[in-house]
């Protein structure tokens, strides 16, 4: 078995890494190919300083 796998060792390593990343992404809720978040100041945005840019004249509002 190992002899067989040694023929494709790079593929085996890549596949196992991919499986590990898949599991990590699943456990952390990470969508690997990007999500729909558009917030550019996402990391440190708080109430009131997150501007909204609705294309039809809506206003930012918060609780």
């Amino acid at each position, binding site marked *: 078995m190992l002899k*067989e*796998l040694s*023929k*494709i060792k790079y*593929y*085996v390593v*890549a*596949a196992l890494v*991919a*499986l590990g*990343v*898949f*599991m990590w*992404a*699943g*456990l*952390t*809720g*990470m*969508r*690997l*190919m990007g*999500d*729909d*978040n*558009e*917030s550019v100041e*996402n*990391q*440190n*945005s*708080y*109430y009131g300083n*997150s501007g*909204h*840019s*609705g*294309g*039809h*004249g*809506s*206003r*930012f*509002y*918060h*609780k």
Partner: protein
Amino acid sequence: MIDMATFGQTSPSATLPCPKCQTTITYYDVSGSLYYVCPNCYTFFKYENGEPPEILTDFPNTNPSLVFPIGTEGYLNNQFVRVVGFIHKQEAGTSYNWTEHMLLQQDGRYVQLAEYQGHWMVIEPTERIYRQFSPGSNYIDADGKSYKLFNRYKADILNAAGEFDWNILDDKTLSVSEYINPPYMLISEEDDKRSDWYEAHYISQVDLAKAFAIDKQSLPASYGVGAIEPADPEDRWGAAFAFTGMMLVAVIVAQVILNIVKPSKQLLNESFRTEVDSAGAVKPVITSSFDVAGSAALNFDLSATLANAWIELPITLVNEQSGRVYEFTKTLEYYHGVESGESWSEGSSTDNAVLSRIPSGRYHLNIYPAIEGVRLIPFRVIVEQNTTLTSNLVGILVLLAIFPAYLFWSRQSFETRRWSNSDFADKEE
């Protein structure tokens, strides 16, 4: 016959004089060889049982450039071999030509080393008689393998050197059929008097160079695809196919584990209706609060009751403890009607969005609907945590498939190029 001598690991040699130029010719199959080519004047003659030599023909007065000169020793098929004969052949009526080296094994049997376009194969005689799968078919089934007819031809002798135990000039009458199952080949040689079978297998230049202890670079460069050159010498396809199957099972198991460890849960399911304030602007909407057990992916299912209308839904997810926000905007639009008696529709009244890696905390949504005019449009927002990230699943499946797909494509391409050299390609399968 004079001067018998033993050297090397193979059978002892002897010498005889050329009947034309009297050059001393060394030969190695002392008891078996009957036909000889003089290395000086290229006379082909028969010499048997001490009777007067019979000159049969003169080959071109050129010294064929032998990759393995007559007398060369090597180690093949688990025994020592010596090159004792060489034939340069050409397919009758064409310019395709190849070489054949006759190798005398230590056990006294012969094998042949054939080369075409730098691709080599070892050919051995067999007592077996193979038959086509059915009369007129181009297949031979043997030992669980199916051999397909690849080539059928007659050969002319262009040149020769060394010694032989048969009259090579008679080969011109033979009809040769080659059936392949790479890296193996079955060869039929038949004429009015006889029908013989041979079994061949591909030998790489690396193995050949090792067998004769020479530098691989001294072998003719290979080009094209050999008739029985293995498409996948290391059988990476078989290993990749099996491993990919295991990985697919592993991915499914991993997804099941994820679904158990992080089950999906609906956090919010609320319906709203757009409202316009006194200034004519659409009022923002604030949803109820909900708790996220993160880090988690959130899926937002959006739907609206639309009839030839649109609604834009900029949504902000607000962490009520940290103030951190996540924003996205989706526009739902749906139009339909009847034109020339045919109904049509475009757009969709539903859409979804995903925000990933949302930390634990209490959240709510601020929604800033935008619509055309002052219509009242009902819409619904459903939030689910730990949604199955289908794109991740598809992504890893695609990644896993890339290498096997490449191998498959590579093999197919290889076989296409192989069979482009055959007159029987269209009869394959």
